[in-house]
């Protein structure tokens, strides 16, 4: 059994410790906001925070996440009030939306370390968006 702290809650999970965190979140804890895009750390759709830093959860084995504070999109804010969530709505960023949980989580971590400077966040966002929402992402970040 592995003890996890997800969005502030203690969760015990009973799967092999080599299972990537992504699948523990999605299939065991039913936190499906975190997305699978590639499974090899190449797209960013699965980004979550571990102790505040962005990690691609498809490439984090469960045992490495044990005991650390895990934040998923569901826990970014209780009511979609995180400044990035608000800016995303304000600027109507998402299209299909599938990459956006990862974008927001990567952006949230970068925003924290950039002390609110949106242009620095843009530099840190290497996630893929097939719908091509990049221009609106940039506009949303510029308005922070």
């Amino acid at each position, binding site marked *: 059994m592995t003890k996890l702290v997800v969005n502030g809650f203690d969760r015990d999970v009973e799967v092999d410790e080599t299972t990537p965190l992504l699948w523990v979140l999605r299939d065991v804890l039913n936190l499906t906001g975190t997305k699978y*895009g590639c499974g090899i750390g190449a797209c960013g759709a699965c980004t979550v925070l571990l102790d505040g830093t962005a990690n691609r959860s498809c490439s984090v084995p469960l045992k490495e996440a044990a005991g650390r504070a895990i934040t998923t*999109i569901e826990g970014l804010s209780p009511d*979609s009030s995180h400044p990035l969530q608000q800016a995303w709505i304000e600027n109507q960023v998402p299209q*299909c939306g599938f990459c956006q949980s990862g974008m927001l989580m990567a952006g949230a971590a970068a925003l924290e370390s950039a002390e609110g400077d949106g242009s620095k966040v843009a530099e840190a966002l290497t996630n*893929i968006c*097939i719908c091509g929402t*990049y*221009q609106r992402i*940039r506009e949303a970040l510029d308005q922070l």
Partner: protein
Amino acid sequence: MTDASSDASIGDPPSLPMLSRRHFLIAGAGGLTIGVAFLAGCESENEPAVLRKPKPSGKPVSRSTTTTVPADSTVVVNAWVRIANDNSVTLMYGGSEFGQGTMTGLAQILAEELRVPWESITVKQADATPGVSYLTGGSFAVRSQFGPLANAGAAAREMLVAAGADMLGVPVSQCIARAGKVLATVDGIERSTTYGELVTKAATLPVPQEPKLTDPSKYTVIGRSVPRVELPKKVNGSAVYGLDVRVPGMVFAAIKHAPVFGAWLEGTPPIPSGASAVVPIKALDARGAVARDSEYAVAVVASNTWLAMEGCRSLDARWNVLKSAPLDSDVLQAQAEQLMAAGVAVIAEPAASQIQATLDAATKSIDVTYSVPYLAHACMEVLNCTVDYRKTECEVWAPTQSASSVVGTVQRLTGLDAGAITVHTTFLGGGLGRKSEQDFIAAAVQVAMKIRKPVMLMYPREEDFGHDRYRPMALVNVKASLDGAAVTAWKYRTASTSILGQLGFSASGQLDSQAVEGATSLPYSLGIRQTEWVANPAGIPVGFWRSVGNSINAFAVECAIDELAAAAGIDPFDFRRGLLADDARATAVLEAADKLSAWRTSLASGHGWGVAYAESFGSLVCQVAEVSEVTDTSMRVNRVACVVDCGRAINPAAVEMQMQGGIAHGLSATLWGEMKFTNGAAAVTNFNNHRVLRLDEMPQVDVEIVTSGESLGGIGEPGVPPVAPAIANAYFSATGRRIRILPIFPQTSS
């Protein structure tokens, strides 16, 4: 069609279902329900085969409901718009939402005609329902629904006004409908009654079949950039995509295809450790029947997706490779060249007179060949489908672009009546044409029938890349001659694989109109013109990729036009102006693009600009790109000016988003996109060797919408076709070298 493509399963033909005259509006009570009714016996084959019987009451009915079930049981009724006595308005959405903003656009149309605040409309995804569900493709979602939905809204409004007049005791002519109320001035005092108070009465009135529609000059909701209705769910992780479906007791399966095209399973492999079952997957033939000896893939079932994928990796399957010569990019290229040189063509547009003599006699001419590659869709959400098969019933959840095709697929595999099949359309993490296909649905149904538990079947990303229905590769040759600024002859020959042919919808020797879309009916004056197509029977499975044939032909046409302009020594804008002089609508778009790209006259050295114009799906689009820092392996695309005339923008912000997105998508394909095949297998397997545009590479895209007021054009696809030629022409302007082969910067070697 060869073996490799026979795992192609069938979808509806891309003829786009619209509400026909056989459909009529009908009302029901319990609030005012405007539904669509049609005679079951009149169904043509192309229409949704499903006839869901109205569910008996007592069930929670988020699906189609109606309270007016005519005695004549051959009439099928489906709810579409419902106004409840608490004033709430619900619109059942029969299409698929993958970011185009269709849900919002339709709510705007309904709000406009019904005269209610658009925010008061709740849009709900409808389950597959005849008359309500339709194929979301061909940039047709809003176009096909505008008329019928406007009619439904206007009909409901007229019924409510009639009921309101009755209640207020005044003639209908003295009443107006506004903001969800019927108002009238009675004895100098304004009185009003809400729709909610009127619905019960209104539901008993006859339904006007030809209600009076709002004059477009009076639109207040249509044409506004209202926020998209589904976005709040897309920023907090609560939007449910296909992969997010969770059903009690469900298990997870991953698919593993044969390692090469045209190989079949030999015996059922043992269950790998950590998994609970393996299920061989059979191909469907072109008629949708299960083909014999055709197990082209295996599904591994486990308690979570990771274990299922691990099971696929360690699977000990033996494959019977039927073909002696594996499909290989070099061989495919050589075969295509052979076809271009000597293949028998189907003539799409015959020349009016001797074209060769004109070409031969010209002093200035071009003879150029363009080549575009196979392309994967790479939707952000991999293919997946969840099925609960309960012997007498089957329930399906899928990110599908065509819910009614899914019903047909389930029927063919299970033999169940359509009425026993429920299909829920989830949000789609991208569709791009791929999710109108049925292969992933058919595979999931087969797994569920075997294991008798609710199961999600997903494609690991490697399988999604490796077993796509690729945008076909194509070669195009253009021979054209000039006399001054005039084009005197234009001979266009292309070779590509027919998508409709592979699906069994068009016979060999028949023209596949999609193979030449964007090459025929060109708006330009091109003198004597001939367009022909050679079918390429290559066995790579092909399919609909955002903008389909237009993505191929706009590249060749617009690059060739640019080459002619250069040969004539005329500015590319002026040259096109000359050729479009007879077309006022096209000229207006070109002129707007000229203004919007005024920056191009003052570019620094090393920078280049290129223009391209393309009409597709009823919309006219002109794009001007600026590039710089061109090297052998990279370049920067700094900006793209984009002008679009889609008749009228229902939601201008949505149009802008689709243009920006189409440009980003087209740009990735132009610069790097290519699927190669090595020894019968796809060479690109994941995003580490499939490069797509990133944030820091996104050009500044400025979009201007021209409102011509002409018939509505699509917006999901028309942004794509002009991108590649605009970039290629800009590359020429920066370097003096022509791009005739895509992608510009290949990432893989075959």
